[in-house]
């Protein structure tokens, strides 16, 4: 952001920010279309597609059967043939069913055809737990970070959801856009003027001096809650919201960690081979001596049982405790 006058903003729910980005993209680019379960008249499980079918009709906003493999395959094939489809996979758990066309075709088609084809599809999918149990709660974005050819974004605010989706719908190749069940009903300021947020740039969400918390998606909000608690104890946390997971903006994290001297990575998913493991490695390549800790779900499936769900997932207290321990170490 430059030093010019602050941009006028409007308050939008996260789900409205998604609908707005799609509305603008579909207005500007005839090639953009939406494929997904209940995305048409129903407007999406989280109402994030409300209004699109009225504006653009059922040819461009298509309800699909429950067939994740074909849904992604169709999107990928159409993308390779010149369209810009967004495919909605309501639960990230079921992205597993469509990994073959995404990973084995879309991510590789540019390479394997020597640049003749590319598949600029956006696969939008919803991660995270909210009382729906073991097969509707997973966060597998770390898997995608290890797939050359894929871009992965995971915004935490309506403004970034809007701006990153705009960028994703203009990207060169496939983008996985990860949102979160608990984010849809959150609200935030979004610039009134049309624009976009560049892929590949993290942002400092909260300034602090004692420790850097690097996180993404819904956990950014949980980190902020922890940071407020810690502030009351005199501990100052800087929060880096990664926003894009592939390519990772290591520079922004390093800049923060260089100043604070300590890094806590935070993700809702599993830590083993997770986002935090990767960030930690990359940061320590530049800053070998910083203190590091990571936080994620405990190594168990996420039950729909509210007690077990909350026991499994990171919360403000676990984050605060981890920071406290790290800072005395």
């Amino acid at each position, binding site marked *: 952001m430059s030093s010019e006058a602050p941009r006028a903003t409007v308050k939008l729910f996260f789900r409205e920010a998604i609908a707005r980005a799609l509305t603008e993209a579909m207005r500007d680019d005839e090639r953009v279309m939406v494929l997904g379960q209940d995305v048409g008249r129903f407007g999406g499980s989280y109402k994030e597609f409300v209004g699109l079918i009225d504006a653009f009709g059922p040819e461009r906003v298509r309800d699909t059967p429950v067939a994740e493999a*074909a849904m992604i395959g169709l999107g990928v094939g159409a993308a390779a043939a010149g369209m810009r489809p967004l495919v909605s996979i309501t639960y990230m758990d079921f992205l597993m069913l469509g990994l073959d066309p995404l990973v084995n075709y879309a991510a590789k088609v540019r390479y394997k055809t020597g640049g003749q084809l590319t598949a600029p599809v956006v696969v939008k999918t919803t991660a995270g737990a909210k009382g729906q149990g073991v*097969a509707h709660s997973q966060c597998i974005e770390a898997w995608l970070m290890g797939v050359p050819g894929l871009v992965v974004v995971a915004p935490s605010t309506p403004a970034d959801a809007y701006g990153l989706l705009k960028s994703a719908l203009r990207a060169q190749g496939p983008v996985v856009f990860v949102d979160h069940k608990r984010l849809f009903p959150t609200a935030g300021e979004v610039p009134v003027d049309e624009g976009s947020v560049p892929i590949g740039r993290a942002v400092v969400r909260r300034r602090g001096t004692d420790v850097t918390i690097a996180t993404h998606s819904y956990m950014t909000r949980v980190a902020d809650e922890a940071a407020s608690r810690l502030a009351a104890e005199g501990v100052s946390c800087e929060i880096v919201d990664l926003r894009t997971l592939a390519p990772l903006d290591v520079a922004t994290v390093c800049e923060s960690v260089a100043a604070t001297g300590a890094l806590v990575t935070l993700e809702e998913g599993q830590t083993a081979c997770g986002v935090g493991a990767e960030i930690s490695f990359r940061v320590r390549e530049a800053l070998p001596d910083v203190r590091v800790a990571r936080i994620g779900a405990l190594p168990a499936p996420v039950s729909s049982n509210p007690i077990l769900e909350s026991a499994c997932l990171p919360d403000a207290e676990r984050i605060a405790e981890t920071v406290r321990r790290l800072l005395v170490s």
Partner: protein
Amino acid sequence: MTPIDRWRTMLLIRKFEEALDRRPDRGFQLFSSGEEAVAVGVCGALAGDDTLMCSGRSIGPALARGLDPADVMAELLGRSTGPCKGKGGRAHLAQPSAGFFGAHAVVGGNLCIAAGVALAMQRQRRSSVVAVLFGDGACGSGALHETLNIAALWKLPLLLVCDNNGYSVATPRAAALAPRQLSDLAKPFGIPGATVDGMDVMAVEGAARAFVERARSGSGPSLLECVSYRFATHSTSTRETRPAEELAAAKLRCPIVRYGIELETAGQLTAQLREKVEREVDEAVDRAISRAEAAPYPDRSEVLDDVL
């Protein structure tokens, strides 16, 4: 199953779900009111050694299979006295020892698992049959094709039951599925299929019985489509978008009312008996609720139990 038991079980499902729905702590649930005849009809055709699997819409199937309502309620309300210790909940209810191999909330994902259970039955030379309930939504999934093909090749003792309630969430079946009849999907594989009125418990049970016997005799799988309707919204957190007239018309075909009238006409359900059964069902539901209420929640420390 006696006629009265059939009616009682359908009523139990209905009242159980209504009681659950009234609880503010019920969490996310999928109800099956309107579809009771499918679960009850299929279970009426199963023997004790057979096993049932279903989708996330699992309350009807679990109760139809004869699980103790108190156990089911405890599980649904997250109590550690549930058969899954409160860890499974609605979408993953299971009590294999009671012939209920369980729910699985991945649409289409239960089909090949069910075929695997049937393979185990076959290999163990048991005369048991596996019945698996799934929605019309699952018929768009490739898992059905893969399962039909292998089940046909290996003559697995498997009854595939499509509870076609006309919708996958808010998408009407016709917008998502090209086949005229979903049971036609079995035909290319040489698998027998049938489509019956899923609001007619006797039609479901009759068709299921023939297919179960077929499977038990080693002749392999079959596909039964039961055309039903769901009276509730897709889930407790889903908004209603179906036309009000359609919903109203469907409610007139309520499987419980319908079977009740049949039994009355046949002189099998007197006003007195009806009152008695209704009272018993209410008591069973009350007992389920109070037993669940009295039961403890799991402790946070149990979060890492039963992982490996």
